[in-house]
């Protein structure tokens, strides 16, 4: 191995030209290699070979969904983050494809697509920034300090030194030592209320308009065996979030889609709609 201390991933990143993936057809996209769904999306977006500002978000959403479908077909385990993104993209796709209904309060597909584009551009910008940063002349690698320092200039009057990090590490580790941990981690298979809550918050947290997310959520996040527990937990979690004032829900009729949105700041009026009956 020529570059033994370089993971395939670092190499992948090191030459982050947009050509890479297409010129190397053998490249296997491995979810483990990605830093989350946005990273995967960025990778797919680069394959469109256009400026991120001119990208087709619809095509991108479709590619991503195909990817997730494939992964599921091969029974690869995808982290919840990827599935949350899939649910959101499926929703975005439907918004892009279905013409806006009169009186529709929801954000348009185009608005949602713009948000996604912004996030991709911002992530890419940070990527590039990281690369430029790490390639600068660095102290201890390219430039050096005096090898035989003759004095330490003490500026603080205090003769004791300690950093906030030292302090926090000391506190956390000793409190941890004291708290006897005999807690075992529950096996997955059942959606805990906490998990469902976290997922819901991620998905709906940013949505200010009524959004029917439940179906997307279930399609992408739950395997058939998990469906029941997923429904139960996310429903219970959503009720809890409503009670705490984070979320509002609405249902047109029994068994119809559940609409959710994050609660607007002044509350009251909208709650009326949430009753359904």
């Amino acid at each position, binding site marked *: 191995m020529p570059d033994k201390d370089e993971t395939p991933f*670092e190499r992948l990143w090191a030459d982050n030209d947009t050509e890479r993936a297409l010129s190397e057809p053998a490249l296997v996209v491995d979810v483990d290699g990605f830093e*989350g769904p946005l990273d995967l999306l960025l990778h797919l977006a680069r394959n469109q070979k256009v400026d991120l500002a001119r990208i087709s978000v619809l095509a991108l959403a479709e590619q991503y969904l195909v990817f997730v479908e*494939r992964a599921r077909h091969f029974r690869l385990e995808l982290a919840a*983050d990827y599935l949350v993104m899939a649910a959101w993209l499926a929703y975005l796709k439907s918004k892009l494809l279905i013409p806006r209904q009169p009186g529709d309060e929801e954000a348009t597909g185009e608005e949602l697509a713009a948000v996604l584009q912004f*996030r991709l551009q911002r992530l890419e910008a940070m990527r590039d920034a990281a690369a430029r940063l790490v390639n600068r002349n660095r102290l201890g690698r390219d430039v050096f300090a005096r090898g035989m320092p003759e*004095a330490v200039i003490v500026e603080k009057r205090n003769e004791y030194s300690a950093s906030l990090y030292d302090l926090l590490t000391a506190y956390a580790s000793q409190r941890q030592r004291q708290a006897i941990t005999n807690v075992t981690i529950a096996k997955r298979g059942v959606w805990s209320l906490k998990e469902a809550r976290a997922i819901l918050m991620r998905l709906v947290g940013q949505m200010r308009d009524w959004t029917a997310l439940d179906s997307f959520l279930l399609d992408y996040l739950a395997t058939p065996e998990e469906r029941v527990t997923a429904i139960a937990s996310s429903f219970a979690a959503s009720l809890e979030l409503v009670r705490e004032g984070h979320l509002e829900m609405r249902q047109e009729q029994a068994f119809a889609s559940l609409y959710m949105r994050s609660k607007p700041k002044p509350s009251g009026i909208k709650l009326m709609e949430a009753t359904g009956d």
Partner: protein
Amino acid sequence: MIEGGPAAVVPFMKEDDESTENDGNPAERLHLSEAMRMAEALVFASAEPVTEKALAARLPDGIDVPRAMAELQRFYEKRGVNLVRVADAWAFRTAGDLAFLMSRDAVQQKKLSRAALEVLAIIAYHQPVTRAEMEDIRGVETSKGTLDLLMETGWVRMRGRRRVPGRPVTYGTTESFLDHFGLAEVRDLPGMEELKGAGLLSTRMPSNFSMPQPPADPDELTEDEDPLSDIDLEELGLLTPRVEE
């Protein structure tokens, strides 16, 4: 006072002779020269950057420290060792163009993971930044060890709390981050101005951010798009099943 040849190797004196600057008073110049020698010695003796405050405390009274340092810096500009500014402190560092010579002896540094670097860049460009904002930018939770590791390197620190409900802790970079990456200040981060101008350092989508033109028929591909075929997907490796280890 000193003429001809030898003066060339005593540049403070040299400048004295040639100086056309405002304060040509020889006594004053001598005073400044001596202060510069002292500053040079102090900074040279320390491996860590020395703050202007610490220098001021040790130099004769009435010395314009920033000016003396700026002059010293100019003097060392073309040498094998440069005087560099790190925030409000000064340090001598080997010249960047000699990296080829120096790195031969460099101890291999531990590499930061890609995730850690990305988080570092986000903290540097967006500081003060909360964990939730980092997560929003990267679209993924920052794994537990990453911030810990960055704080351990001494490049990242907790800065305080954002004065908003929930008072989340904010993160920023340290002076040793600047020192390590050869930056005088955060503003000097590569591309900082452009990124700011492009609205990409905002945690929220800026209102002037261009909205994509909604295509007349979203199903119709634009002229620079090709339809996605199964072959494409295969090429992208998206159809290749992951090999189980």
